[in-house]
Structures are given as C-alpha cells and as structure tokens.
C-alpha cells in the first residue's frame, strides 16, 4: 500500500484494525533488512507522503513530510549553510543496498545519528514536533514548530527510535543548525583501545570543543590503529583548537593532520561504515565510553572486526559468533546491543533490539498499547 495523503494513511490503518492485519511501515525501505522477517505483514509505504512544508533558516526549523529523501533534505539545508543536526548516516551500502535511498522519516523513526551526535545531539534531540496517525487510526499532533517548547508531554521523543511501532508519522518539524564552515581532523597512530579511549575522554573534557572522536583498530587501518579527533567551526577558532589538540596528542606520538578532502573522506567512510562492509553480522553497541574497550576485548579473540565512534560510546562490531556473547558484553559494560545486519534465519531467532529489563519491557508494552491498542504495528519485527 502506498498512500499519497494523510487521509489514505488513516483509511489504511482503519482497514487494518477491522481486518486484523498488521502493517509494516516503510520509508525508503533501506533498513527493511533489520529485524525479524515478517511475511504476514502488509507493507505501508509512506514514500509518497513527501515534500518540504516549510523551511525558515533564521528560525532553525524545517517542516517536512516523512517520505522526503534524506539526500533531498540535506541538499536543501546545505544551500542555506545549514545541516540536519543529528548527522544521519547512509546505511544503504552496508545493508547491501544503494546509497541515498533513506527517507527523513525512516532515519528519524530509526533514531539513527552519526558521528557528530557526540557533540550535537541525536535524532531525539532535534525532532521538535510531528503529525502522525496512531494505531487507532486517529490523527494527532505533538510538540510544536518552534525550537523551545515544553507544552504537554514530549511525544516526539518517543517517535525518534519508534521504528514504526507506535504510529505513522505524516509530518515532522526538525531543528536544523548552521553547518560549520571549516572541519579539520587531528589523529595519532598506534594506540591500543584502552589508551585511545582515555585520550578521547581527555580531548572531550578539554576546552578544544571536539566535535567527533573515533578509533580505527590496527586491523582496519593497514596494521596501525588511528585515533581521530574532529574539530568544526569558524576558521580562526578551528586553527586555535587544532593547536590545543596537537599538544594533547603530542604526548602519544606525532599528530597526523587530515584537512580538507582528507578530513571529509575519513568521516564519510565512517558515515557509511565502509571499514566494516561485507556480510558478517553487524552489531551496534551503545555503552558508556569507558566501557568500550571491555566489549571488544571480550570479542576480538573470537574473530570480530570493530571500530569505535562517539569517543567509545558507540561500538560497531562485525561478528558472526554467538549473539549472546555480544549482548552479554554490552550489558556488562552498562549498555545495549542492536543487531543491524544478519542472515534471515538469525534475524528470526535473535531480536534486533536489546531485551529490556522486565519492568521497562512491561512499561514499553503499555506505551505501545497507548498508541496502538489493537497491535496493528506489531509485525513481530522487533
């Protein structure tokens, strides 16, 4: 089903309630291969609910329909020197698809944020308001179209990361931010994971205002690990902060400068997760940064490939071994692990989302029923 108006979305959901069907909401479908297979569900394709509704750069707000391609949204705001503030990445290639297929609705509903999430906030932090059709078949609005608002519950927070399980978003208002005119990266080679995480913590705790921090282990970088720190802003400021970071890195070896195209290429590779391309199972592990080394120490001897983003707060692991090992390592480090890429049989057996504590699971279930009492969106995917 590919509705073209909000009314058609309502009708589709109302029909599903009546017939007892379940609906699998799809934006660009680029992440369709995440989660358990769901042969019985009807696809509710929202790619035709598209287009920009309003964009006022001076107000920092953009109102857009969910089926709008991410690439189109990014081009629009780039023209006015701005960016989608949570730095979404392009997952297409890593899941065996093409780049540029993601929709803004899919990216927000999946709560996918890139390297700059560390300093600039995630999808959750930049979704200001929405219109949606609930699993009751009713249209509602929540949040607002201004950057500062506390009127009523912050339901947009639930939308970011809802993954099609609460409601079909038909319009969303995002906060956008200026795009920094200059970006530069300073790196140091040869650190082990624990030393790299300590260095990244020191950099994040310094006054150099680090925008992104990542670590490529030796196995992914021609036999020599690389700790990367990215600085963004106005020219004079970036130059001054680069000097601060070079001093910090100096204690660990010669600082490598990646400027201009080199800087862009380095972070673009992380944006598509190119170093972990292939068809090994892919896990996304969110942990407190200091917990990152323990996660990979447990799994590296078993043949995993991995890298750190978010100063260690995000660990990407390509690993075909036992899923329980990844989940246990994530739990032990105080975080959670999501299965992003896996063969169908494994996805049928292992839940994509990290199982929550029983009390939280029950609460999540009640919140889902608050939006979707009949379970129209319960496809069994997650």
């Amino acid at each position: 089903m590919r509705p073209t108006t909000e009314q058609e979305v309502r009708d589709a959901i109302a029909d599903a309630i009546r017939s007892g069907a379940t609906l699998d909401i799809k934006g660009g479908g680029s992440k369709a291969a995440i989660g358990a297979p769901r042969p019985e569900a009807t696809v509710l394709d929202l790619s035709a609910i598209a287009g920009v509704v309003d964009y006022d750069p001076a107000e920092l707000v953009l109102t857009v329909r969910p089926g709008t391609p991410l690439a189109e949204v990014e081009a629009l705001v780039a023209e006015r020197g701005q960016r989608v503030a949570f730095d979404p990445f392009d997952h297409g290639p890593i899941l065996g698809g093409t780049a540029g297929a993601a929709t803004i609705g899919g990216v927000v509903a999946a709560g996918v944020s890139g390297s700059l999430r560390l300093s600039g906030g995630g999808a959750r932090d930049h979704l200001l308001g929405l219109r949606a059709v609930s699993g009751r078949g009713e249209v509602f609005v929540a949040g607002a179209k201004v950057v500062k608002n506390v009127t009523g519950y912050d339901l947009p927070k639930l939308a970011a990361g809802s993954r099609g399980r609460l409601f079909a978003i038909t319009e969303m208002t995002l906060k956008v931010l200026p795009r920094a005119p200059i970006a530069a990266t300073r790196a140091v080679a040869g650190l082990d994971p624990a030393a790299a995480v300590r260095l990244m913590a020191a950099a994040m705790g310094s006054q150099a205002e680090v925008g992104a921090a990542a670590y490529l282990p030796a196995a992914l970088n021609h036999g020599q690990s690389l700790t990367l720190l990215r600085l963004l802003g106005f020219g004079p400021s970036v130059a001054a902060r680069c000097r601060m970071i070079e001093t910090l890195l100096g204690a660990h070896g010669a600082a490598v400068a990646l400027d201009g195209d080199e800087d862009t290429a380095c972070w673009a590779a992380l944006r598509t997760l190119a170093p972990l391309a292939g068809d090994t199972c892919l896990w996304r592990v969110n942990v407190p940064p200091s917990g990152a080394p323990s996660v990979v120490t447990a799994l590296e001897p078993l043949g995993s490939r991995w890298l750190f983003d978010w100063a260690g707060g995000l660990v990407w692991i390509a690993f075909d071994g036992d899923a329980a090992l990844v989940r246990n390592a994530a739990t032990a480090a105080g975080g959670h692990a999501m299965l992003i890429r896996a063969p169908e049989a494994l996805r049928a057996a292992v839940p994509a989302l990290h199982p929550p504590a029983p009390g939280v699971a029950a609460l999540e279930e009640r919140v889902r029923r608050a939006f979707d009492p009949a379970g129209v969106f319960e496809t069994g995917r997650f």
Partner: protein
Amino acid sequence: MTLKMPQPEAAVLARRAAIVAALRRIVPGEGVIADPDGLRPFESDGLTAYRQPPMVVVLPETTEQVSQVLRWCHDEGVKVVPRGSGTSLSGGALPLADGVLLGLSKFNRVLEVDYDDRLAVVQPGVTNLAVTQAVEARGFYYAPDPSSQIACSIGGNVAENSGGVHCLKYGLTTNNVLGVELVMMDGEIVRLGGRHLDAAGLDLLGVVVGSEGLLGVVTEVTVRILPKPEGARALLIGFPSVESAGQCVADVIAGGIIPAGMEMMDRLAIEAAEAFVKVGYPLDVDALLIVELDGVGAECDHLIDEVTRIAEANGSTTLSASRDEAERLAFWAGRKAAFPAVGRISPDYYCMDGTIPRRRLPDVLERMAQLSAKYGLGVANVFHAGDGNLHPLILYDANKPGELDRAEAFGSDILRLCVEVGGVLTGEHGVGVEKRDLMPDMFGEEDLAQQQRVKCAFDPKGLLNPGKVFPTLHRCAELGRMHIHRGQVPHPDLPRF
C-alpha cells in the same frame, strides 16, 4: 483564585488520621508533617497566587521509602503531588487538599562524578547550581542554567524540562540528562536510560523529562557535564526599534552563529533594570540585546567582530563589547536582575512564558501593547531572543480589587496570541495549573487524549499530580476505547473542573 482544582474527596479526608499513621510507619520520625504550622511552608510554589495546604507532607530519604509510600497510596486510592524546591512558576507543585505532598528535599546528595564519561549521578533534591559546584574544580559544569538555579532542584528541572539563558547553544534539561531512576505510582522502580547515549527501545526517558510530575517520581538523575569554555565575551547593543533588534537576531543565526546566549529587553525592562542596578544600560533605545559568545579566545574575538558587523548593518545605535570578565558580568547584571527590578516599579508582577516564531516578534509586541491598553496594566518584556521565548512581565497590584483577575486574563490573551502566530503556551515554565485550561487553544481533543493515554500507561488510576497539565480528567478506560469508524471521540459527562 479563578482556577478550579479537582473536588477533594470527602472519603479520603475522613481517613486523614489513618493515612498519616500509615505514612509514619513507612517514614519514621520527622519525615511526616501533619500539623497545620508545619504544612504552611508547602502550600504554594513559585506561582504564589495559588495556595492550598496539603493533607499531609512526607519527606522520604530512600528510593525504597518512596516506592512504599507510592504503593500504599496507590492501593488506598490516595493522590500524591511530588515536590522539589517549590520554585515552579506554573503551579506544578501546588498541593491538593486530599493529597499527600511528597517532598524530595532529603534526596540531596551528589552520588558520583565520572570525568572520563563526563557525567554526574545525583539525587533529585540536589540544586541545579550544586551540580556545577560539585564539578567546577575540575573545570566542568552542568549546562542548563535556569535563573532559579541556586534554589531549584534537579528533580524539578527534569519534571519541567527547564532551560536557561544558555539553552540555545547547550540545550534544555532533556538534552543533558542521560538516565533516571523512576518510581511509578504503583511503587515499581524502573531505570530509564543510563550512562550511554540513546535508548535500546522506546525513548521513555525522553517522555518522562518534562512530564511535570505526572508519570513518576524521579529518585536519581544522571546528567552530562561539560568542560567550561575557555572564555566568554558579551556585546551590549542598543537599537532604535524592536524590529531592527529582531532582524539583527535573525541575521546572526542565519549567518551561522549560535551564540551562547542572546537576550532582548524592551524599553520598560531596560529602564527598570538600569534604575535598579545602574550598570550603564543606554536609556535612549527601544530594544537592548545582550549577545554572549563563548569558546576559545580566537572564537570569541572572531564572533564579536562578526556580530558587531551584523548589528551595525541593522542600525544599532549603541554597541559595546566586554573587555574583561567584570564588564561581561556587568552587562548581564541588569538582565539577571530584571525580575526584581520590575518588582520595584510595581507592587506585583506576573511572569509569562510563551514561545513564538521570532519573525513574528514586532507583530506580537504591537498586539501586546494594545492588550496592555485594553486591560489598563503595564507590561515589561524580557526575551530569550535566540529561541523566541518571551517573558512578558505583567504589572499589577494584588491589593487593588480585580487587578489579579485582570492580570490573569491579560496573560491568557498573550499566550493565546503566541499560539495564534504559530508558537506555544510555554517555553520552559511548564503548564502546571496555570496554563492547564489554555491547552485546548494549542491542542485538539485527540492530541490531548493521546497524551493522556501515555499518562495511563504510567499511572492508570490517575493518582499522581492530578489537576495539572490536562484541562479535563478522562478515565483511562474511556480513553482506551477504540472508535474505528471515523468521527469524534465521544466525550460524555466527564468531570471538568
């Protein structure tokens, strides 16, 4: 007072002695207050026009006690109102005559600071400023900085999603909280979020922040801490009109600059502030902007030049840039004292808190001037200009019959105006009881019903902080009923108060 609260239940009032005794079994000693003198300090919060002594106050010291109190009240059908420091400006902590007031003042410890992961774990009764004080020796701070920061609690900040003058650049509470421990009305204890970014499943933490004490009682908070910027400089800029000041703000932001703070004051606010603190604010301008830039020295200096250029292009008539810390603080002194300064020129004032799309500012101030004439009450404006958050201060005299009512009616008209131009009823102070009855001006029936269904997922009996935020008390069973055929959700004889 003009506002109705839910009718106290006679059956609950009749059991008061038994309720007090049961609470004393859970929280021994001085942790239960039941005598009239002891209750009086709790009868209102920062919205002092509304007063109501609670049935009883309980001040637990442990999460386990909070859980037991809530479970007992849940089982016995007794309402509970959580309270932090009682500085809410929307009456969020206003007690109920038949309700238990659950104060978190004894939860006053900073439990842990982790500089590697850049976070602090604190109890909810810790004041906002105390978090910064706990980490500043190591060069860190907690970014959200409500003006009430010496008094307000982190638990209250979480409940209200509080902001401050720096939230344009550094975010509101919601952007700076990683996790909470929450006790739900039935006594169940859950942990939402943690010490990492982003939830595994639904972002329940995100909806708890800003829920005004209606979803659960927060008993522990994990906040992010940030390194203090190397420095900060401020500009004090006068404009001949509100339009030109507003255009300057828009051009700064469209020019790619997000200042650490950007505040505007109108003529009356400038005059009141200057008369009070005498820091040299220009008195021949219609609008005054304070723009603060922070970061490394090179950044501050560069941006001072950029903003100066933009201000001059917009016809600024006076402009000074701070050369040292003392001067920067002097620029802020008038703005920070704006409320008490207005308090000197008027016996009482009533602080409003709407947000508008900034481009509508001249329009909105013009209409506000008309309303001021209509109601015969003055209004001074201070304004978080960067994010469009207005704080009109309505001047009135509570001792003059009818003036409070007129001030409230004036305030409601201002908030309706904010909504009419595409803005919202509240930018940071919350709905509470104050704006409760205005909610239908911003939200439709289904919008409010959907929010209340989320409330039902946390508190199906509706016992936690009832009478706040929602103008109509729906029963959860009624809200849950489905009407598949298009048409109106029926709303039979629901209690409206």
